[in-house]
């Protein structure tokens, strides 16, 4: 791979990747399919589509995008992962890409040593899926204290709530505390003492679960909490691209609807108040694209060492502060401008609203990211 570019545009390679993902999702994860998955989730089932995941992870190679080539991955960068997330957001697809190929993989990429490398190799092939056992509501600015304890006997004990992708993970990466401080451990899903309890989630297309470790054998993949911090920053920055995808779908779908829907013998999209609101929303989405691209470009260069961590953190915080709000706003406007039909279960708009709202909380709220900018942009708060 050539050195990542800081360009805010999409490269040709990125556009090709997007086309492949979009084709797959159009085939396998259209609105009806996703609604069926949501019904499964609403009935207490696990909604993930393992065939879709296999096609995405293995055939397109999305699982190993961030994994270096020498470990069997694509050796691509955050830029390409961002494009995949845009498409997954646009389809509210029910796959563990973000949980495994972004969050868990980013954590492992920040680990040294053979255990992490072995795991990365397994993830790259798409045969193994991992989950980072950290609450989705964790903020990169205040990473949670590890709730799990690593005993002297090499087993882990404790419970983590709010975990995504755990139901379909083969390996759980869990931050632990032990006598020497903190570490990141890998636990096989099938190990004795591991239990995963689904929680009724607001977001039907990416449910959360409670993960309990009742003395399960664990392998330390890294000491310290650096890997978790890196994963939360990378995850936050890339989540902005998923939010962009959500917002883009909501805007596009709403624009198409108001062109068709007639009331008072006119398309409702010819009413000026609606036109102006959609123009404003379009501006927000245009800004979201620039901000999300900027975060991805900075994360890509961070990997390559050419962007300082302050710049990366600023790019991530700006993207999250903006995109998190835009996605919710777009989903809310989508519902409102669809009128009654947008309030029905059978129209997919609600799936986007629920995803957008969950994403707003995920990995720092917009307010958390703005507050982080107080330090990053030298805009200190009141002297108390």
């Amino acid at each position, binding site marked *: 791979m050539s050195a990542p570019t800081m360009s805010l545009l999409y490269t040709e390679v990125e556009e090709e990747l997007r086309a492949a993902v979009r084709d797959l999702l159009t085939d396998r994860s259209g609105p009806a399919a996703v609604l069926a998955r949501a019904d499964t989730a609403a009935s207490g089932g696990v909604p993930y589509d393992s065939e879709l995941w296999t096609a995405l992870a293995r055939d397109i190679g999305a699982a190993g995008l961030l994994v270096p080539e020498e470990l069997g991955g694509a050796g691509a960068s955050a830029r390409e992962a961002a494009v995949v997330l845009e498409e997954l957001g646009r389809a509210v697809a029910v796959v563990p890409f973000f949980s495994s190929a972004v969050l868990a993989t980013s954590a492992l990429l920040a680990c040294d040593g053979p255990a992490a490398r072995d795991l990365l190799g397994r993830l790259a092939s798409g045969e193994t899926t991992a989950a980072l056992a950290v609450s989705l509501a964790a903020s990169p600015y205040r990473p949670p204290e590890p709730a799990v304890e690593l005993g002297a006997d090499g087993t882990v004990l404790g419970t983590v709530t709010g975990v995504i992708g755990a139901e379909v993970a083969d390996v759980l990466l869990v931050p632990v505390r032990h006598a020497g401080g903190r570490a990141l451990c890998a636990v096989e899903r099938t190990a004795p003492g591991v239990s995963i309890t689904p929680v009724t989630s607001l977001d039907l297309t990416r449910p959360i679960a409670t993960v309990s470790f009742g003395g399960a054998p664990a392998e330390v993949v890294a000491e310290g909490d650096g890997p978790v911090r890196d994963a939360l920053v990378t995850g936050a920055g890339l989540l902005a691209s998923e939010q962009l995808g959500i917002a883009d779908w909501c805007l596009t779908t709403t624009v198409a609807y108001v062109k068709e829907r007639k009331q008072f013998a006119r398309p409702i999209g010819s009413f000026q108040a609606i036109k102006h609101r959609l123009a404003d929303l379009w501006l927000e989405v245009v800004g979201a694209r620039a901000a999300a691209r900027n975060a991805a470009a900075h994360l890509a260069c961070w990997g390559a060492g050419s962007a300082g961590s302050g710049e990366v953190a600023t790019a991530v915080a700006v993207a999250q502060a903006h995109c998190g709000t835009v996605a919710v706003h777009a989903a809310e406007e989508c519902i*409102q401008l669809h009128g*009654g039909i947008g309030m029905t*279960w059978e129209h997919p708009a*609600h799936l986007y*609203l629920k995803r957008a709202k969950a994403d707003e909380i995920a990995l720092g709220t917009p307010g958390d990211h703005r507050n982080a900018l107080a330090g990053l942009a030298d805009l200190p708060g009141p002297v108390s």
Partner: protein
Amino acid sequence: MTWDEESVAERCRAFLAEHDPARMDRLEFLRARFDAGLAWVHFPEGLGGLGAPRELQAVVERELKGTPDNDPGRIGIGLGMAAPTILAFGTEEQKKRFLRPLWTGEEVWCQLFSEPGAGSDLAALATRAVKDGDEWVIDGQKVWTSVAHRARWGILVARTDPNVPKHRGLTYFICDMHAPGVEVRPLRQITGEAEFNEVFLTGVRLPDSLRLGEVGEGWRVAQTTLMNERVAIGGAQSRRSMINVVAATWRSRPELRTHELHQRLLALWVEAEVLRLTGARLREQLAAGQPGPEGSGMKLALARLHQRLTGLEVELLREEGLTYDDWTFRRPDRVDFTGRQAGYRYLRAKGNSIEGGTSEILRNIIAERVLGLPPEPRTDKDVAWKDLPR
């Protein structure tokens, strides 16, 4: 006679002296209360009222506090929309027949107005009513009909003349929900439950005696219903306001607070308080016989406030905000916007700016009827309904 606070209170005490709720059947008590004119005091005598000023109803509620009530949450559409319309446009027979069991709750009412193709543009509705001898034959589809599955009667607007402009070809009916050809299907919504229904009307035959108002006057009759609906929604003083729900969460969870959320909460608290005062001023105006135009805005403002408050609450709760209480597809008995859990409140509040008139339509109404701004160019006012683009 001219009623005042004292004479109404006296009437209540006299009624209670003769009707001890502890020793009577609940329904018998309610029927007797209706017959005593203590149902809605501003209604005429013989129709559950005393012909007294509306605000004296508060005296009745105070005096009869603790006695069995008609469970208004269950029969809101009858009380808030059907009753005032029947009172205004019904024949004497219709008033006598329908108002008493409506008020006692013996007969539940629903509203058959909206259609898939006629939401904001209600006057464009397509459900047909064709005269056949002394009967009307109804065919069409209605939607967003709450409690249709429990309703005995529905208020229905249908098109009786497609050859005149849309507002002029409508007629208002009382629909017998037990008549053959009425099919009610639950309509699941984004909260998971089915608070509303779709109602399919296929060859439903209604006697002409169930027509409310003149043939072709349906739009005017419906305006009375809609005006009462918006006043009911915007003017409702809920026992448990959304701001108090969110404030309670805030107070009980200090660990969740941030400066950013704090500033937003304070701004919303001010907005809620300003809205409370606006509503109080409106009620003072109504009581003083100076009905102000503020009512039109209350529903609009409440919808926005509830949406922002519930959005804030979900965000404030963080990990708990990622959860939901129950997605089960069921038909709730009643709706409590402030009930259940934060996620439900957030999703349900999205409907507040759509149901009973979208916020967009309400802004049009304020701009044109209150501010007197000129209408937009209209292309649909002088065209026969059948020739309108769809």
